[in-house]
C-alpha cells in the first residue's frame, strides 16, 4: 500500500467533496468537519457515481409516523437508485453488514512532510506551506 497525494486540503472544505483518481480508481473524498473519508466512487449496487449523489442526513424513527433527523451531511445517496451510505464507514444503510462502498484511508499531511516522501504525487505540485489530502491505496 502506498500513499497518494490527491489534492490540496483547501480544495475540499468541511462539507465538501472531490472526485480524485488513484491508480486508475475513482475515489470520492469527503470532508466531514475537518475529518476526511474516501469511498470508491462506484455504488456497490450498480456502479453509480456516489460523488454526484445528494449528501444528506440520517432519518430514523422510534415509532411509526415519527421522523428524526441526525448526522447532517454524513449520509450520501447514490444518484441512481437512492441507496444511502454512511460516509464515515462506507456501510449501506439498509444492509450495513453485507453491502458497503469500499473505503480507503484518507489523511491530511503538511507539505513540509510530503516533500520528504515516500509519497506518490505525480500530478499534484506540493508546496511546503500548504496541507494536502493523502489517500492510501
Amino acid at each position, binding site marked *: 500500500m502506498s500513499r497518494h497525494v490527491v489534492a490540496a486540503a483547501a480544495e475540499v472544505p468541511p462539507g465538501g467533496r472531490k472526485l480524485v483518481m488513484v491508480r486508475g480508481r475513482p475515489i470520492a473524498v469527503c470532508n466531514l468537519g475537518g475529518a476526511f473519508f474516501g469511498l470508491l466512487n462506484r455504488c456497490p*449496487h450498480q456502479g453509480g457515481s456516489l460523488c454526484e449523489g445528494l449528501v444528506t442526513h440520517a*432519518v*430514523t*424513527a*422510534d*415509532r*411509526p*409516523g*415519527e*421522523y*428524526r433527523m441526525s448526522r447532517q451531511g454524513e449520509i450520501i445517496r447514490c444518484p441512481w*437508485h*437512492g*441507496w*444511502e451510505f454512511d460516509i464515515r464507514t462506507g456501510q*449501506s*444503510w*439498509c*444492509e450495513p453488514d453485507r453491502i458497503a462502498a469500499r473505503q480507503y484511508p484518507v489523511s491530511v499531511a503538511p507539505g513540509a512532510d510530503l516533500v520528504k516522501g515516500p509519497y506518490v504525487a505525480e500530478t499534484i505540485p506540493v508546496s511546503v506551506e500548504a496541507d494536502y489530502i493523502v489517500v492510501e491505496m
Partner: protein
Amino acid sequence: MAETIDCDIHPGVPTVKVLLPYMDAYWADAFVQRGMDGFDLASYPPGSPIACRPDWRRAGQKPGTDLAQLQSAALDAFGARFAICNPLYGGTVAVSETMGAAICSALNDWIAAEWLNADPRLRASIVVPAQAPHLAAEEIDRKAPDRRFVQVLLPAGAEMLYGKSYYWPIFEAAQRHGLPVGIHAGLMYRHAPTSNGWPSFHLHDYVAGAQVFEDQLLSLISEGTFLRYPGLRIVLLESGVTWLPGFIWRAIKTWRGVRAEVPWVKRSPAAYIREHVRLTMQPFDAPDDPAIVAQLLEEIGSDEMLLYATDWPHWQFEGERAVPPGFSPALLRRITVDNPLATYPRLQESIA
C-alpha cells in the same frame, strides 16, 4: 396424513333465515320485513365454477352448506385433524355498518352452535364487519372467549388499505386475544378491484386478486402496523403463493432506495413478511414440476410460512392433490402440522 390441519375451508350459509334465530328481535324481524336474503359475496357467486368443485356440488344446494358432506368430503377424505372454517358471507362487506355487524354476530353464533358443536375437528374464524372496525373489535371481544375461534377474518379488498389507522381497533383486539388475522380473497366491490378501474371479466377479477394482497402487505409494512402490533400475525387465505418471491424482491429493492420516507421500517420488507405473514396453499399457482416448486420454495426463503389448505369446496385442484409435487416429507410435515400449530396458538393449546 391423519394429523393434517386444513387452514381454509368454507362452510356455506344456505339462506339468511338460518341466522335469524341468532339475531336480536329487531334484526330477526327486519330481514323478514324487508325481504332481504342472498348475502353471498360477489367474489364467489354460488353458481360460479370457482365457488364449488363439480363433484362437491349438490343439486339445489349452495356450496358447502351440508354438514355431513363437509365431514366426509373435506375432513374424512383429506384426513383432517382440524379444519378452520372461513365463512364468506355478506356481513363482512354490507354497506350498512349495523346490518353488517348483525349478520356477522349471528353467523359466528350459528357456526359455533351448528358446526363447531357438531364436529370436534372444526374450528372457525371470527367474521367481523370490516366496514366498521370499532364494531369488529367488539365482536372479536365477544367471541374470543370461545377458544374454538382461532382467527379473525377480513376480506382482501376493503374500504381502505389495512395499514391505515382506521383499522387499528381490529388489530389491537386481535393482538389482545392472540388471534391471527386472516385476510381472504374477495372484495367489497365498492372500489374497483384494480387501480385502473373495473375489469370486464371474472378472469381478470380473480387473477388480479394477488395484486390486492400485495397492496395490503405493502400497506401493513410501510405504515408500521407490525411495529405498532408486534404480536400481530397475518394469514393470507386463498391468495396464491408463487407471486411472493418476485414481490419480495421488488419490495426490498425499492425499500433500499426510498426507505427514508418510512424510517420506522428498519428491516427489509422480507424480514417483516417472514416473521408476521403466513399463506395458505390453495391455490399454489405452479406447474406440476417438483424442480420448479422446489426453486420457488427456496426463493420464498422460509419453511415456516406455508399452511396446508384445501380451500374446500372451492375448485382449485382435482382428486386429493391438495399439495403440489416437490414437497419433501419433512416439509410436508411442516406445512400440514407444525406451521399451522405455530400460527394458531389455540390449535396448539387444544392438543396440549
